[in-house]
């Protein structure tokens, strides 16, 4: 009897120990499982982060390559489609006369575009950008300006005298015809017509000094004032009017030069962005001007004493040297425009005399 009691007691003890063993095993397995689970989850998230970074980098490279490709030649229009993305362009003055231009796609790193001059809305949320380019020549090629817009943007050309039979302002028609057909653009005759296009995300209204502009308190617009005798694409001023200003604000007036410069203002959001990009373009102009100066100096040394040599020396001293380091202001742009005209005449004369050209 005593033996039987002992055996039962021992069995009860060992059963309890078995329960502790089994519980311990389960806790052990759960902890190990949790650790493995956390590890796998962290690997998955790391992979996702890498994939996002790679996709961002790839999108940046794709857009950068496409934009750079368009930089080689002027007057090219194309469209770039990609998954819906937020793009931000930023142009700012880092130090005195030192500007930097960057762009950012979604949450990817900001990428520098040190040589590209791009006029675009500063913030875009789109799946397609429309890219147009124009050569920026100031007597010799300086750069190629790139203009970016989207399908949900519209350019409204304000012309109270417009009629579909060909009447209206010649400047308004010139801009309408020169803009690529794929970019959405319309003529509007009055403020009531502007309201029809309220469904567009971005509405850019263009008007001309001599023809009147929409209600200053109701609309933001760009007022173009071309210089007397220079034509629309010569030089002049653009006013980035803001409806919040109500009245004329001289700080919103900036000068433009050439066709590519005027379109730069049309595709920019504000004076700050436009002025920053134009200042960068004028920096590039100074580099190209110094190259032309070096080339003409070397050529005049090698040329025999002839009309060619005299013409080249005259261009060098009267035009190229005087165009040195221009700033974006009305006086400089007027001066620069005159010098460009003189360079064109010099170049024609050199061609007629069978001489090497300035450019």
């Amino acid at each position, binding site marked *: 009897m005593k033996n039987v009691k002992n055996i039962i007691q021992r069995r009860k003890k060992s059963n309890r120990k078995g329960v502790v063993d089994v519980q311990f095993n389960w806790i052990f397995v759960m902890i*190990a499982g949790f650790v493995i689970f956390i590890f796998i989850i962290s690997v998955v998230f790391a992979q996702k982060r890498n994939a996002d970074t790679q996709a961002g980098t790839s999108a940046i490279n794709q857009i950068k390559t496409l934009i750079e490709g368009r930089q080689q030649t002027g007057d090219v229009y194309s469209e770039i489609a990609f998954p819906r993305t937020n793009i931000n362009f930023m142009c700012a003055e880092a130090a005195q006369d030192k500007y930097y231009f960057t762009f950012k796609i979604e949450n990817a790193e900001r990428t520098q575009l040190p040589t590209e001059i791009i006029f675009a809305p500063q913030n875009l949320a789109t799946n397609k950008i429309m890219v147009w380019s124009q050569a920026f020549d100031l007597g010799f090629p300086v750069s190629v300006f790139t203009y970016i817009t989207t399908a949900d943007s519209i350019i409204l050309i304000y012309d109270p005298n417009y009629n579909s039979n060909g009447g209206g302002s010649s400047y308004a028609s010139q801009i309408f015809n020169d803009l690529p057909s794929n970019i959405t653009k319309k003529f509007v005759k009055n403020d009531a017509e502007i309201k029809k296009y309220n469904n567009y995300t971005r509405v850019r209204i263009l008007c001309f000094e001599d023809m009147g502009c929409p209600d200053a308190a109701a609309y933001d617009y760009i007022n173009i004032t071309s210089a007397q005798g220079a034509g629309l694409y010569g030089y002049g001023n653009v006013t980035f009017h803001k409806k919040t200003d109500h009245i004329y604000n001289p700080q919103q007036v900036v000068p433009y030069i050439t066709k590519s410069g005027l379109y730069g203002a049309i595709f920019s959001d504000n004076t700050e962005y436009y002025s920053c990009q134009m200042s960068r373009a004028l920096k590039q102009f100074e580099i190209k001007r110094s190259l*032309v100066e070096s*080339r003409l100096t070397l050529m005049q040394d090698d040329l025999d004493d002839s009309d060619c040599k005299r013409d080249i020396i005259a261009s060098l001293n009267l035009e190229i040297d005087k165009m040195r380091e221009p700033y974006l202001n009305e006086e400089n742009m007027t001066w620069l425009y005159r010098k460009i005209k003189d360079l064109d005449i010099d170049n024609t004369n050199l061609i007629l005399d069978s001489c090497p050209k300035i450019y």
Partner: protein
Amino acid sequence: MMTQNSYKKRGQVQLGETTAVIAIVIILLVIGIVFWNKVSNSNVSDIRTQSQELSVIEIANMVPELTELKCYESGVNKVKCLDWYKILAMNKSINDKNNKDVFLFYNDYFKNSKITISVVYPDVLGNNNITIYDARLNNSTKTLLISIPVNIRDYVNKETFYGTIIVEGYYNE
């Protein structure tokens, strides 16, 4: 009938098995991580080399298209033709020790490369190789060399030469 000792042994065997399984799983995980790391590192290195080589090819494509070097006749640029005086002017301006602005501007285009214009035929200019740009990183860099044939036009003496643009891209291994 089981004794207390045999119960103890059974418990030890079970714990030993579990520990062995966990150890094997951990070893397999470590081997997996090491392998994955090596594969991803080699991928990164491949991508970097590929991107550096592509960058050199881009530079080689860009140089003959630069308006600062191209020949223009009647306002139209000539394909694969460089203006001799533009080459000399660029060489002078980029390598100007007193003014680094031009070098810094072209550094954004040419990056870490060396660009040489070589006159192959005829040998009349005296100076057959002109290095217009050189931004070598350091002595231990690897190079990729691309050579592009071009015509070189001297508008002062009204002569055309045959030459090559040699683009050497420097990059770290």
